[in-house]
């Protein structure tokens, strides 16, 4: 089974902080990581390959330094990495990102399964996976929490819903987005790390994938950000006073409207 895993480099949430004076995101010391959901997608791909054979290609669209997560993916068992990188992609929203990834997937070709994370933690949109599937004209299922049976002809799996889960069956090719209940990502092996060090990646530009300039980057994005501002500050640090009994008494009074 040939699997393509879409992975994205995102800022680590614990480092993302608003500078209280300037109301801007503080950049100093912000580490980049592989989007956590994508780590679960990668793990699933590697373990499916171990069961069924084939190869795992990781694909990312991003600036040149996104190569770091391709390296990390190789050290965790991926066979091949592709970086789609071009200044012209800057400002892409999920629509333009789906288009660009679809073009790259067509270029890579020969896949049975595409795995994505449920969402990227920087934008939290969860829109790229389904968008990519629509562009490739293949079915998709989101929020997979368990794959019960997998063969080259059919997958049976559990899709997480708000009130429980659905059991669904689908034949390949298909795109799945995954949640973290699916598996526990492995840590890189020593051999993997060695392989990652030597790994070289295919780098594709807008021209290489034959992208239409009107569909990529800012120009290709139907959504446009017109304003960014800090959220309303929360009250915060309103610690109650008095003996514990009194504090609880006060709390129950304050909460009366909700009870």
């Amino acid at each position: 089974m040939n699997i393509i895993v879409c992975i994205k480099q995102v800022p680590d949430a614990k480092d993302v902080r608003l500078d209280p004076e300037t109301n801007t995101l503080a950049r100093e010391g912000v580490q980049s990581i592989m989007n956590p959901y994508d780590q679960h997608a990668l793990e699933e791909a590697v373990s499916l390959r171990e069961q069924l054979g084939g190869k795992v290609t990781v694909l990312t669209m991003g600036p040149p330094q996104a190569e770091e997560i391709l390296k990390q993916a190789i050290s965790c068992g991926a066979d091949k990495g592709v970086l789609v990188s071009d200044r012209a992609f800057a400002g892409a929203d999920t629509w333009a990102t789906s288009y660009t990834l679809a073009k790259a997937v067509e270029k890579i070709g020969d896949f049975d399964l595409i795995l994505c994370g449920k969402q990227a933690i920087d934008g939290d949109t969860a829109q790229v996976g389904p968008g990519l599937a629509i562009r490739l004209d293949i079915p998709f299922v989101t929020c997979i929490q368990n794959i019960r049976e997998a063969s080259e002809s059919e997958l049976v799996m559990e899709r997480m819903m708000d009130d429980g889960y659905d059991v669904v069956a689908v034949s390949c090719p298909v795109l799945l987005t995954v949640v973290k209940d699916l598996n526990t990502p492995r840590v890189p092996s020593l051999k993997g790390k060695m392989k990652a060090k030597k790994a070289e990646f295919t780098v594709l530009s807008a021209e290489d994938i034959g992208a239409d300039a009107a569909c990529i980057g800012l120009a290709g994005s139907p959504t446009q950000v017109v304003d960014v501002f800090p959220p309303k500050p929360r009250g915060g640090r309103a610690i109650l006073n008095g003996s514990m009994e009194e504090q609880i008494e006060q709390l129950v009074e304050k909460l009366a409207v909700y009870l």
Partner: protein
Amino acid sequence: MLIVDNELCVGCGVCEDNCAFAAIEVKDGLAVVGDACTLCGSCVDVCEVEALTLEGVEKSVQVDLESWSGVWVYCEFRAGSLAPVSLELLGVGRKLADARGVDLSAVLIGADTGETAAQLIGHGADTVYRVDNPSLQYFTDEAYGAVLTDLITKHKPEIVLAGATAIGRSFIPGVANSLGAGLTADCTELAIREDDGALLQTRPAFGGNIMATIVCPSSRPQMSTVRPKVMKPLEFDASRNGVVEDIAVTAEQLQTKVRVLESVISEQDNVNIQESDILIGGGRGLDSEKGFKLIRELAESMDAAVSASRAVVDAGWIGYPHQVGQTGKTVAPKLYIACGISGAIQHVAGMQSSETIVAINRDKDAPIFDVADFGLVGDLFEIIPILINKIEGNRGS
């Protein structure tokens, strides 16, 4: 692309101060754009010497905006019931439709929807497009997507809203891509811009550290998924008039490659924590599964649902559907009581838009208190039993 005209730039740094993403910096007296640039244009607006320009913004394809009219709400119906967020969306949808002077329509897709259409009219809809068919009993992205896409193509609404639920966030992106429409995820505020009637869609980004307002200037419909619990439904009014239009499904729409074999509704607890008005969140401070029993009792005394930090889910005390945070669910209940949760940024990202937050923690420096409206510093094993007692006492009297 954001272009800096080095001839004009005076290196004043106003752009740097106004960039929310810290993506522009003055180096050696000139503004330099970094990779974090989202091309939002804030810097272009504030640059007094007009040294900054955005290039490549002009769209080559323009749709005829005038031919799209009306506000639509996708009303989610599953396993015999309407998702509460549907009524919230009709509430905000009504306001948007009135501001635009257009009709509000509801799209109801499912099987055995009974009196639901009348309920939607009573809550604000002028028209209900009802697609009721036994083959739509189970949700599939393909069939639901095809039905909604075809309806939108036929009637051309200018705005389409859906709940940011598991179902909405699954198939709506597919619909938007099929239509070539812009879609904004998980909005918490919607309004109409006065100058041109555009939909202003506001949503949190970067774990809630930044709010962004988004428009879709040249594509239609303007589509958003909206977070449950943040919009208010209208009072039900039985005297409201509306039209129900029954829509037949075609064989083609029902042709799906994905088959639903079984739909399993969770028995334990109420797992749909996004729809709960009150959530009791449990963290590692509960110490064990037994501690968890305590917050279940508290939840019961308040008709609340139970949620958890990732630490607790990883420990296996409760299932993943209950996890709140960056890699779990985002919730916005009226009341969130965090018990033994430290308040790591990844947890706070998922619950900071709750109306009121209470924190119980024995460490007075725990970051959870930074977002709490009421904080109790102490041992939760002491506090919670007293709290339950008082609440039940009050209820009894």
